[in-house]
């Protein structure tokens, strides 16, 4: 049924720029992409969404004829005025099209540029390759113009810079400049902003949006982020397991999804209003369900909270803090430079608090958590966790501390030793545990912990690779809980997971924290996730705490400029959809028959 839908969408073939018919991709006996039809008209912006591994990248690559050699493909891809069959066109013909009529921007800006070549050369190469401009001076002029058009500062200097001297956002701008160099008819973007910080992501998306609109370029935009797609595209295709399961105009698909998978995606990406609200009750001061019965954070709602300078994050004033950080500095000294990972951080956490830490990449979030967990030592300042002075603790008290404070890491694969069985992994914190236990006891505890996260004890002898990403993260959580800790520290616990899986893991965390009355410290770059789970927010930037306070306040009335920028940059599907009809020229697309 999908096929027919897509075909009818491109009914008016005359203005079709790209026509994909029956495209399929196989790796040996496995079908990676099932026969797929797609038409992109001139100036049309098409989004492609779906979970990881659903075949988005492969589809995108086949449109530019860059499918990996080892994969077999079928069907045709026709480009107006050029080729009836891009997939089987000779290399020479393809070379003439790539970079001239079709351009592509890839996901990972860190590796998409040749590290040994000055970026100026890499941009000008697109021009010289297609002999678009008569002489070198004009090429140079044009490159400078391009760099300016993507708002790169000091283009003259950047010409001679090497990729490693640029930030991720800057590199992605270079990629965009490259893509637009020859004013292509079709631009393919494969998750171009996923690797970037939210604020940077926003800038790059704006840039892309503007460039595409102003030039009338057709766009195929691959993303897993619904809000981003909604913002940029007119039409959207949803993929799952290599099939297009739904397609139609953005407004239709995202407001009235028909396929289950799309519904799931939508539900998952609407974390913030639903879950966050449900737990605390709309707008009212949160009564955390923590069994520890820690003081409600009402105190900080008052004027005292607002008057406090942003650096000192004193969150709750009632009981004696469980974690007390003051004047914390952590500097990394290498031969070349000194990095201030943390600068003068003050923080107090009381039992039962749920603290969310947000901030851009490199702002020191992980460093802070590591120091709290005793995995790193502060350069100066005092840190006391559960009454233990982390900077000066003996091995024994450190061990006790670590039993009370456990960590869940970002990457569910990387944090599980692939050579150990799940039982061995979960059991590890018990080995050498202060209340040394017998093997039998350990096994029991392990089984119980696994069950509490929904992994059957019968799976304990399997290896991590035999589990899905979500299951692995559950195992990781089981390991953290096996010592029955008081504090759970989580470093981006769901950012490596697909949106649909994310929701489940978050729900699990939520339940466990509630049930066990844990104190939670969670780092995430995703404001929605943090808002969903936490009642207090700490915003960090460049190693400093720029703002801290109850979630409602920080989200509702951010005091710091950076916090504001962060909130604004975070794409929100509902906001985008609300604005959608007012945007130019998209409403006229006929809905699906």
């Amino acid at each position, binding site marked *: 049924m999908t096929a027919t839908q897509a075909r009818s969408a491109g009914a008016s073939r005359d203005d079709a720029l790209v026509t994909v018919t029956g495209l399929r991709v196989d790796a040996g006996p496995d079908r990676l992409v099932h026969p797929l039809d797609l038409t992109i008209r001139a100036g049309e912006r098409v989004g492609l969404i779906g979970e990881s591994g659903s075949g988005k990248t492969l589809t995108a690559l086949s449109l530019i004829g860059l499918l990996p050699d080892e994969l077999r493909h079928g069907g045709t891809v026709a480009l107006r005025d050029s080729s009836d069959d891009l997939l089987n066109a000779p290399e020479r013909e393809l070379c003439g099209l790539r970079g001239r009529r079709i351009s592509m921007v890839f996901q990972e800006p860190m590796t998409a540029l040749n590290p040994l070549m000055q970026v100026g050369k890499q941009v000008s190469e697109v021009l010289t390759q297609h002999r678009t401009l008569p002489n070198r001076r004009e090429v140079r002029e044009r490159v400078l113009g391009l760099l300016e058009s993507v708002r790169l500062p000091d283009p003259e200097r950047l010409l001679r810079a090497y990729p490693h001297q640029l930030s991720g956002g800057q590199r992605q701008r270079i990629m965009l400049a490259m893509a637009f160099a020859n004013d292509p008819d079709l631009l393919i973007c494969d998750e171009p902003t996923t690797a970037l910080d939210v604020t940077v992501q926003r800038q790059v998306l704006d840039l892309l949006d503007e460039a595409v609109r102003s030039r009338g370029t057709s766009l195929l935009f691959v993303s897993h982020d619904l809000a981003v797609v909604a913002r940029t595209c007119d039409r959207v295709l949803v993929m799952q397991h290599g099939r297009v399961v739904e397609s139609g105009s953005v407004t239709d698909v995202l407001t009235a999804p028909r396929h289950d998978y799309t519904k799931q995606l939508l539900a998952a990406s609407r974390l913030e209003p639903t879950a966050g609200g449900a737990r605390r009750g709309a707008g009212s001061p949160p009564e955390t369900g923590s069994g520890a019965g820690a003081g409600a954070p009402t105190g900080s709602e008052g004027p005292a909270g607002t008057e406090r300078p942003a650096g000192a994050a004193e969150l709750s004033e009632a009981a004696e803090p469980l974690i007390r950080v003051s004047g914390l500095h952590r500097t990394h000294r290498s031969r070349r430079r000194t990095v201030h990972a943390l600068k003068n951080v003050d923080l107090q956490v009381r039992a039962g608090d749920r603290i969310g830490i947000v901030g851009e990449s490199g702002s020191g979030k992980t460093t802070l958590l590591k120091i709290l967990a*005793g995995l790193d030592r502060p350069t100066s300042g005092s840190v006391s966790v559960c009454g233990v002075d982390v900077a000066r603790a003996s091995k024994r008290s450190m061990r006790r501390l670590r039993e009370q404070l456990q960590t869940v890491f970002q990457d569910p694969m990387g944090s599980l030793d692939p050579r150990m069985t799940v039982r061995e992994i979960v059991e*590890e914190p018990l080995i050498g545990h202060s209340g040394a236990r017998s093997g039998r006891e350990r096994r029991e505890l392990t089984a119980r912990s696994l069950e509490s996260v929904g992994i059957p004890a019968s799976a304990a002898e399997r290896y991590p690779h035999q589990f899905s990403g979500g299951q692995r993260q559950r195992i990781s959580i089981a390991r953290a809980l096996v010592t029955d800790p008081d504090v759970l520290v989580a470093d981006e616990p769901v950012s490596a997971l697909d949106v649909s899986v994310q929701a*489940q893991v978050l729900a699990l965390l939520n339940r466990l924290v509630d049930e066990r009355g844990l104190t939670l410290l969670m780092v995430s770059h995703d404001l929605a996730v943090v808002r969903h789970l936490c009642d207090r927010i700490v915003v960090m930037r460049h190693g400093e705490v720029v703002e801290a306070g109850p979630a409602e306040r920080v989200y509702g009335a951010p005091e710091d400029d950076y916090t504001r920028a962060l909130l604004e940059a975070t794409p929100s599907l509902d906001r985008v959809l609300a604005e959608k009809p007012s945007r130019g020229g998209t409403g006229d697309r006929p809905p699906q028959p």
Partner: protein
Amino acid sequence: MSGTNAAAAGGPAGPDRPPARGVGLLRMLPVTGKIGLVVVAGIVVVALVSLVWTPYDPLQAVPEDRLSGSTLQHPLGTDRYGRDVLSILMAGAQITLLVGCVAVAIAAVVGTPLGILAGMRRGWAEELITRGADMMLAFPALLLAIMAGAVMGASTWSAMIAIGLAAGPGFARVARAGTLRVMSSDFILAARGASQPETRIARRHVLPNIFDLVVIQASVTFALAILAEAALSFLGLGTPPPEPSWGRMLQGGQDYLAVAPHLTVWPGLAIALAVLGFNLLGDGLRDVLDPKTRGRR
């Protein structure tokens, strides 16, 4: 629903890699790797058989029969002393394997822990070990063999020790690189977070995870050791007579290249085959085990 489909969860280039071991590993070997395995297994079998049976006594000189070509009695001919080449070749497999095993064992036992130490400790320990490894490279196997031969008398042992010591830095490097990669994994942080002592981390986490690399290195080093032993024996610094050794057979055959080429051809082939076998096996293992090259074929 929670992604029970394991393939969906990992992503294309992810570290979603089963710890291939045992039979599963054999099945995953590419064809070339399997060929290598068969060759290696063949050599092992020949060496084992030669312990209990060879067509003739490989040490028994029969001057009357000397330098015969291939005959029914002597399928691969006889050498200058009238000894059966096939028998010597079979018995020579023992030395070849012995040298390989002991040299690789020495190199692995010396190199791997140092590499792990360097990777885990960083700082001055790392500097000292990497510098030491660099320095060892200035003492190649040959030089060490000359020295060892002079100190202990040229023997199979001196050759093995020399080759083993010279191959040590290779293991240290591989182990260090692997350790650095492992140490950056979150599961090490998790283990530290669980207050596991460093020795246990080295034993339970680092070693099993770099073990594949060590195995690959061992296979390749084995091949190098065979070549090195051949070269040393050729120079008279390896296995002394009359112990059958392929390298010494080559040296002895050199003078007869024109009259009795079989004295060069057979041991030459044997060496080449053994080296080929171990290299193919090593490459095959790398294909299966080394995450860096995975998905290349």
